[in-house]
């Protein structure tokens, strides 16, 4: 496939010619001591501003532009009707401190979404407050700590397999917990290592299933048993939920706590890095500790319940990313139980199909089936031809594909983590496979100097970190880059 991204030599907003500052009389409005005389933000025409950002958008690649098999990120189609719903004034123009009687529609959506998510995950209760998966993890660990404390236990060890997402150890670290990382065996949790790690200090095990290699942990019930026997809790990282909808559930696998990534599984758009939404579901014994307020329903209607003496308190100022929650709610109604099962069926089929077609092109370490994603390795290519994963990734862009996740998980050398999602056709998958087949045979120099067809050539990330210039103010105060 031929692809050439637009390139505009677009100046910074601050480099554009600004209109004059108009005088404004602040004398009676702001005390002299703190009054500001000048603000160095350019005065531009609205047309120029819209043109500026439109040009920038043309130098960006979204899932509406092309195939985006970014492993662990579930870049599926974002349905347009949910965008229309989220823009309704009945969503956008309500204040979170409004009296409950004036926001019954919003509270009902939250209440029903909690219920749907709980059913999907096999959990008993859900909080919608966390803003993203990482905050869901943080919330989940706080809940686990509260649960143990109520039993008079101070537990501070969090067990994490070496395949875990980076947010898992970071969330545990932020809370001051000790991290026990256990090595994998054949791409799966090593039960012996887990047995050795679990004990009276175990707060929780954080696990994603299927794991980041796309492998389903078949011994999940044994894993649960080991952790529960030690008195610990099981935390499910929901980043890979797209693989198992309607086939199994975290609840059925004996997990106690789960976070959902609504911007992955339930397709709220990722917005170039957010906003997302990371609700957390729990089993009954953990329900009393959920953040306040909890959305309730009684004879007078839906209400916000703050009277929760055992609650961990709050992790966000209000009730969660409501405009995203509305989108996810509408998506779940649209798909239904039947449709969501088809989602996972097709996501898994697509991943296994690409893996099958790449046999002989790239190695895929560890045997067995894959779920919604798989991790290939370019180690052999690197050893034989000096072509590394980074080169394959950069070259894929020249063919109009966003690269897979690279160099993760760490236990696979020269890793490429491919997650196609269910909304891609066989035609798209075949095109991607053909491009990769062609690329691995190309002259190494073409690959080392890739990409060639994107807005800019390979970016010097080392320079950016060596002398960080994070703003126009800093840039102005320095010598121009030579």
């Amino acid at each position: 496939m031929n692809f050439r991204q637009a390139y505009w030599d677009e100046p910074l907003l601050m480099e554009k010619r600004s209109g004059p500052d108009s005088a404004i009389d602040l004398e009676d409005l702001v005390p002299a001591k703190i009054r500001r005389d000048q603000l160095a933000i350019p005065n531009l025409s609205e047309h120029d501003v819209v043109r500026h950002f439109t040009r920038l958008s043309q130098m960006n690649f979204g899932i509406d532009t092309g195939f985006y098999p970014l492993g662990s990120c579930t870049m599926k189609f974002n349905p347009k009707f949910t965008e229309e719903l989220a823009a309704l004034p009945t969503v956008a123009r309500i204040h979170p401190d409004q009296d409950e009687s004036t926001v019954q529609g919003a509270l009902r959506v939250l209440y029903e979404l909690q219920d749907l998510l709980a059913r999907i995950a096999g959990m008993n209760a859900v909080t919608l407050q966390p803003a993203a998966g990482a905050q869901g993890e943080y919330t989940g660990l706080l809940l686990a700590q509260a649960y143990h404390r109520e039993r008079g236990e101070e537990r501070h060890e969090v067990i994490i397999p070496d395949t875990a997402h980076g947010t898992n150890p970071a969330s545990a670290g932020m809370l001051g917990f000790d991290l026990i990382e256990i090595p994998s065996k054949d791409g799966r949790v090593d039960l012996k290592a887990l047995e050795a790690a679990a004990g009276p200090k175990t707060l929780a095990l954080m696990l994603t299933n299927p794991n980041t290699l796309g492998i389903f942990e078949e011994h999940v019930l044994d894993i649960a048993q080991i952790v529960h026997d030690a008195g610990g809790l099981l935390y499910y990282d929901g980043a890979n939920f797209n693989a198992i909808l309607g086939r199994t559930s975290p609840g059925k696998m004996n997990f106690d706590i789960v976070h959902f990534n609504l911007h992955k599984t339930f397709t709220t758009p990722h917005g170039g890095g957010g906003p997302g939404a990371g609700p957390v579901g729990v089993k009954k014994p953990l329900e009393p500790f959920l953040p306040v307020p909890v959305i309730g329903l009684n004879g007078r209607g839906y209400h916000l319940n703050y009277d929760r003496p055992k609650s961990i308190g709050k992790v966000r100022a209000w009730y969660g990313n409501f405009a995203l929650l509305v989108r996810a709610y509408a998506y779940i109604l649209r798909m239904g139980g039947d449709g969501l099962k088809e989602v996972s069926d097709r996501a898994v089929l697509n991943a296994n199909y690409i893996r099958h077609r790449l046999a002989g092109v790239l190695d895929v370490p560890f045997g067995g089936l894959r779920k919604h994603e798989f991790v290939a390795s370019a180690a052999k290519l690197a050893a034989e031809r000096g072509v590394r994963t980074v080169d394959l990734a950069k070259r894929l862009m020249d063919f109009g594909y966003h690269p897979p996740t690279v160099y993760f998980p760490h236990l696979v050398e020269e890793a490429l983590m491919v997650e196609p999602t269910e909304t891609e056709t066989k035609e798209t998958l075949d095109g991607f496979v053909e491009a990769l087949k062609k690329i691995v045979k190309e002259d190494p120099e073409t690959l080392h100097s890739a990409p060639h067809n994107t807005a800019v050539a390979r970016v010097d990330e080392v320079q950016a970190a060596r002398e960080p210039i994070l703003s126009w103010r800093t840039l102005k105060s320095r010598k121009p880059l030579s």
Partner: protein
Amino acid sequence: MPSDEDEMLREMGLRSVDDLFADIPSAVRISKLDIPDGLPEDRVVARVTSMLAANRTVVDMPTFLGGGLYDHFVPASVRAVVSRSEFYTSYTPYQPEISQGLLQALWEYQSLICELTGMDAANTSMYDGSTALGEAARMAHRIHGGRIFLIPRALRHNRRAVLANYVLGAGLEVREVDYDRESGMLDLAKLKGSLSPDVCGVYIENPNFFGRFEEQLEEIRAMTNGVLVVGVNPIAQAVVRPPGDFGADIVVGEGQPLGTQMNFGGPLLGIFGCRQQHIRKMPGRVIGLTRDAKGHRAFCMTLQTREQHIRREKAMSNICTNESLLAVAAATYMAVLGSNGLRRVAAENIRRAKELAGAIDKITGFEAPLFHGAHFNEFVVRRKKGYAPVHRALLEKGIHGGLPLTRQLPELSDAALFATTGRHTPEAVQRLLGALEAFR
């Protein structure tokens, strides 16, 4: 033509997609999800729209709530820009060559926030103003090492609650500093009494929780060697000297007023900026300026060794997904308004709030603003005979009054926090005043 599914299965030598789930043990299998079957798009739209119609928006009901979120006018161009699907359907810009547009927009956002606040660096966002405060306290501890973080007692309770959960792992103790009962500003004598070598940081807000401008930044800076964290309203910053001028180390704030709707409290935009000397201790994603292989200016995510995917349990924060699209909205908003527009909006907010407070104060039994001195776009209204019945009566008349302060500060249980942005029509204001008159 065979379907995609059939063809793929055939090519893989499989009979059914069930074969691909053979690795899920029967003990954990479920046969289906326990939720209703799917519905066509038109029915979902009709159902959700009618469900939401039970909400009363600020359009239907004059609403005088602020307390951290404000109903500012958002030019249509902002929505047009963030509706570009090249932006909103992209992921975090891990691959800079194909993501220059978003990277430049986010770098411009960082730059504009720095202009507003007088900081050298800003990240691409935190989840909201409250988590930005939580992260700032943690960062103050990383910079200074002390174990105590001081905050104003007059602080929106949801910010305090979130802060409490963010400092747990760092073992920080949060202590409150009371406000001056006359001015509503921080009580400097009390602050002085609270300072000690173990205080890693002091947090103050300008404007503060009462909407009152905090005029003592210079004095507060002089009093402490700890990290000074200032919480701002970004619109007010257009007419107020930036915290950087007063020697602040970190600036945080709720960025929702910059082009994002209230959305029932989310998504929001956590502003986070700091001085250059602190950037390696800053949480969150940041965009840096560099060159490509051909020497063109280019942008990329940088200082990633601070982050969770590299540093794991030693990361500055676990944040990964943030609120980037809202940062693009904020950049667009600031660019569309420009310096002139932002300063005009800020001045108009002050003027309108001043007029409204003056009009309420004229009504017998009401006092507004309760605290003397200059305010931004909100202020405290007190009714000595009790405020609760007023709130209920307003609701019955289809008007939403300010935020009752009972749950925030017990000494203000007869008061409420009223906000206006210049978006209230004269009729809406007259309806409010008329309804308050009935309580004379």
